[in-house]
């Protein structure tokens, strides 16, 4: 099975995030980036499929600062090929534009399966996967927690509230949004990443003109601290009295 895994970078949240002057994006000058954790899960799922049934894995990413390191890490973990889509990609790329550029590049790449992370810290709606599937005319399943190859289709698992699990048969080629691989993403030893950088090269593809449609950020603000927790202290009677008082204040008591 030939699998394409889409990876992207998100800002490392351990850094202090600042909002840019125009109020529409993070100040990207001082950001550090890490791979989107769900993309890491998608890659792990792809590696498990390859280990079980053979095939190839191609990691694909839109150009971004430090993205080479991440693509080489994918190769070090066991991807066969890494593709970097280059072009006019400064700043934040909207999910519509990203899906558009990815679809354009992937049309030319033969594949059975495309795995994306289900969402990213920058795209909590998880739009890239469904949009990509739409542009490519392929079926799509999101929030997937397990993929198994079965002949000309894959069986995918979704987990619901209350411990209910659903299984879907999906015809190939298809796009899947991965929530979690059956096992935690593996570690890529630095020596292997470094060796990969010497041995392998990234394939560069020119991006199609970005489609302006999609979401636009009007304003970015820091979350406001609404209220603080109140610690109730004292003996049992005082505490009970206060709790009853609060419930009465909020109109939660009858009479």
């Amino acid at each position: 099975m030939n699998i394409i895994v889409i990876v992207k970078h998100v800002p490392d949240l351990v850094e202090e995030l600042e909002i840019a002057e125009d109020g529409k994006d993070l100040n990207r000058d001082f950001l550090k980036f890490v791979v989107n954790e769900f993309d890491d899960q998608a890659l792990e799922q792809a590696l498990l499929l390859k280990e079980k049934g053979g095939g190839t894995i191609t990691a694909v990413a839109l150009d971004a600062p430090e993205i080479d390191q991440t693509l080489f890490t994918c190769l070090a973990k066991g991807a066969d090929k890494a593709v970097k889509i280059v072009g006019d990609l400064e700043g934040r790329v909207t999910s519509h534009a990203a899906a558009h550029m990815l679809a354009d590049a992937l049309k030319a790449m033969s594949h059975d399966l495309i795995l994306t992370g289900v969402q990213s810290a920058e795209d909590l709606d998880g739009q890239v996967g469904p949009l990509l599937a739409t542009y490519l005319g392929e079926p799509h399943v999101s929030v997937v927690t397990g993929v198994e190859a079965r002949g000309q289709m894959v069986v995918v698992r979704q987990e619901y509230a209350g411990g209910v699990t659903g299984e879907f048969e999906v015809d190939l080629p298809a796009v899947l949004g991965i929530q979690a691989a059956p096992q935690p993403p593996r570690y890529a030893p630095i020596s292997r990443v470094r060796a990969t950088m010497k041995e392998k090269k990234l394939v560069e593809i020119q991006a199609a003109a970005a489609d302006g449609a999609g979401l636009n950020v009007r304003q970015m603000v820091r979350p406001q601290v609404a209220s603080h927790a109140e610690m109730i202290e004292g003996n049992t009677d005082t505490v009970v009295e206060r709790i009853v008082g609060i419930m009465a204040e909020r109109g939660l008591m009858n009479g």
Partner: protein
Amino acid sequence: MLTSEEKVYFGILVILTLSWAAIDFARIAAVIVSRPGFSVRVVLSRAVRRLPSMLTQVGATLPVFRLRPREGVFHYLIFAAFSFYALVNVLDTFSAFTGFSTIGQNVLLDAYNLIADVLSVLGLIGMAYFLVRRFVQKPPVLNFNPGVVLYPKVSAGGIRRDSLIVGAFILTHVGSRWLGTAFHLAQAQETSLYLPTASVVSLALAGLPAAALAFGVHATFWLAVGLILLFFPYFVRSKHIHIFFAPLNWLLRPDRPLGEIQPLKTDGRPLALQDLRWHQLLDTYACIMCNRCQQVCPAHNAGQPLSPAALEINKRYYLTDHLHEFADGSAPRVPLLDYAISREAVWACTTCGACVDICPVGNAPMLDIIDIRRSLIEQGDTLDAGVQKSLENLGKQGNSFGASGRARAKWTQGLPFKVKDARKEPVDYLWFVGDYASFDARSQQLTRLVAKVLNDAGVSFGILYEAEWNSGNDARRVGEEGLFEMLAEHNVAALDSAQFKEIITTDPHTMNALRFEYAKMGKRYKVSHYSQVLARLVDEGKIVLRPQNGVNGATRRRVTYHDPCYLGRYNRVFDAPRALIERSGLQLVEMPRNHNGSFCCGAGGGQIWSANSKQAERPSEQRIREALALGDVQTFIVSCPKDMAMYSDAVKTSGNEGKVVVKDIIEVVVEAMAESAHEPKR
């Protein structure tokens, strides 16, 4: 004395047994010599240089007395008897062939006879002691934890069998020779002052008929000297070969510091015996299977399936079973994890180095474990989640906490002065602070105290700010060699950009990396631990400790001190922290395990990053128990930020809050300084 028939038999036996043993011995030598890293020149130069120190060390069997002094004494009896018997056997054979007698010849031979007579009895006593110990007393130190991987022949009782054979051989060999002398005396109807014990026995034998005495003389010769010949081929396969390989190991073992690890190329294959360096095979032949290493091993003490002894023993049994193939190079590559040690055991090691330090024959099983880790990492072994996260953090941000690397010097906020940036202005001391001291909330307060004390003492010091990354010491010991290299290269570049005379570290693990491992990258730094710098400042009068405590007959407060593995065993710093404690007016009470015999807190080698839930009683809790057993000691002093974290936790989890307080050495100093200021405390 021997009949001509006997002489022929003896000659045939010599040729058969010695050539048999020599062939196996040559095989062992071939296997060791053909391993990576062996160089005749290096080995010869070590041998020449170390011969005198080896002879004194082995001659006194000093390391055997450690941990088990009683066994050390009884071992010495056997050792002395057996060593002297090398001469005895030659003379006995000579006498048997020529009819020469050593009795009543001259002063020299009288002395020889006296020594042989006394040592025979002492050697027999020594051997009897060990047989009783192993087969009657059965001390638990000879058992392995449940789950420890044992070679099938070992679990089938191979060591007991081997011990019994060797013990019976020594008893028979020495006993027969001793009895033989008595038969000689009885036959000649004489006694000798120089053969006191044999003479007494000879009196008892005197009544026997001449034929019986003659038979006795011949039989005891064969049971003494003949048995040795028969024993030779077995000797090569038995643990008794340690009498040859232990001295050789002390002579030839690498003289690298404990904390300097050799790079390893495994080509991504599981580590096999073929990948081990020559001295790692020398180790396995030197091993006498005494289990001292597991007795001091924190993982073994915590009930985990790690025994450094079992690792060496399994290697040895495997090698013995496949000696032919290893000698001719046809042995298949079988992963060590298949028979020598389990994956779980490999990941349980804290790299505390206690096994290496205690080994009476100079083995370093810890190095095998680190090598196996390195091959596991290279093969993409599934790591403990905490370890993996920490390694990823180190790769991304240069610290194991996963904090922003830019926040490295955040601890300096709140200091009444600005800590110099050593990259921007020259300083005397470059302070390499380390991860825990920089990022751990509890340690940060202590780090600020160190900064204040240094500043008040007028010390010119600076830090690297965000350019300081984790030293890579623990990453290397987890087996992540590439990550270590990356971190080290970064730090070397950062240090190159700074001007300083000497490095101070807070973390002993960091001290090890900077001092011993970076040296291999061509960077020789003078590195001191902060306790050493503080002690120096006290000596120079730049820090004044004028403790009230203990002055004018007042009782000094009793405290104990824990030697961190990487400060003590690795960097041999024992005195500076102790001097600070004494100068602070405290009375230091040593725990039973102190100095290089200190017991690991369980944090090293990446263990502090892992969940490690399979421990029966954590090493840190055992250590707190050890301190409390001293009685009347309420202060447990540490000099390593990881110790502060480990022992503060252990006091809580072992339910000893309020009974003992963990204090860093800097707190001790600051308290003694405050008392010297004669100011009312605010």
